[in-house]
């Protein structure tokens, strides 16, 4: 099983790739996947090395951002493949989401309470985040 199979599956769902469905685009996309893989690996390595409490992928993201900033341009291979991956992130959450079937015993009758807590705190956090950002951008504009 190589990752090229998955890219082909992805392209079926994508309007980006079908437009210019040439060998060159696919090759560039694969190179982009390889590049992202490299940065993910580098992030993982740094996290292990420095015993950071954050995941390798987040550090990989920051490394790629640093790379773009330092080189003054985004790498060509990821131009199409990055938006493609990002527009289908929901597919990539399915494996973890299906894991809910393993949990009946852990939750043991408190399912409703857990659900209430998730719902209430999530709505509240959304409200606070929206209000705070609106407030802080306004106060900034006033200073100008």
């Amino acid at each position: 099983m190589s990752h090229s199979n998955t890219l082909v599956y992805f392209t079926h769902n994508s309007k980006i790739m079908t437009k210019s469905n040439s060998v060159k685009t696919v090759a560039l996309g694969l190179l982009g996947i390889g590049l992202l893989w490299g940065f993910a690996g580098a992030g993982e390595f740094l996290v292990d090395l420095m015993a950071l409490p954050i995941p390798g992928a987040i550090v990989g993201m920051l490394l790629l951002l640093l790379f773009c900033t330092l080189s003054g341009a985004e790498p060509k291979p990821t131009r199409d493949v990055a938006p493609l991956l990002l527009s289908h992130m929901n597919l990539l959450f399915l494996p973890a989401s299906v894991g809910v079937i393993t949990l009946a015993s852990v939750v043991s009758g408190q399912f409703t309470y857990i659900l209430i807590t998730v719902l209430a705190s999530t709505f509240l956090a959304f409200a606070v985040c929206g209000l705070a950002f609106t407030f802080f951008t306004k106060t900034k504009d006033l200073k100008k």
Partner: protein
Amino acid sequence: MTAPENAAWIAFTVLVYAVALKLYRTSNNTPLLHPVLTGSGVIIVILALTGVNYTRYADGVALLHKLLELATVAIAIPLYRERAKLKALARPLILSICAATLVNLASVAVLALTLKIHTISFASLMTKSVTTPVAIGISDLIGGNASLTAVIVINTGIVGAMFGPSVLRWMGITDPITTGIALGTVSHGVGTARAFQISTQAGAFAGLSMALCAIFTSLLLPTTFQIMFM
């Protein structure tokens, strides 16, 4: 576990996703038909009917899980494209992420203590707004359960992606950047995926907010939780 079987599980998951996505788009993005919700629902039913256990399925689609890491790295690209706007909004961005995260954690703690939720579930709930891999790491430190954490995190993502933008709209907030920040801060990757459907700019801000929330929470939560509850 053979390679053809893995390929078949991946093809099956992609197919279910494609149908779920089609349904979601045809229904004009109705929150209740969010593809993670309907997609995993269908997969769960099929696994139950065929008697395949979760471990076998999860092993089969491990590659999709790996691609999630690559997608996380890929968020750097839209972030770079939005760098000018990002720089200009850095201060309000960081302040609102910290405010939302503090309120989020405090409200979970108050609710969990009021409802007398078991310690394992309580600890798992505290990491609900952090991207899955970080959440599991933090949850381990404070006495949570890894799979419960993953499921709570994913469902916080789904709830936020489903209803978060509506909550903001009720308060009169429709700005895509603000919505993106809230989606990333509160609903991590699933929220970020939702934000990318609003606009690439909203997605870029969501991605950054997700990262900042993860960093802020992993610095704050383990120590605070241990001092207060352990």
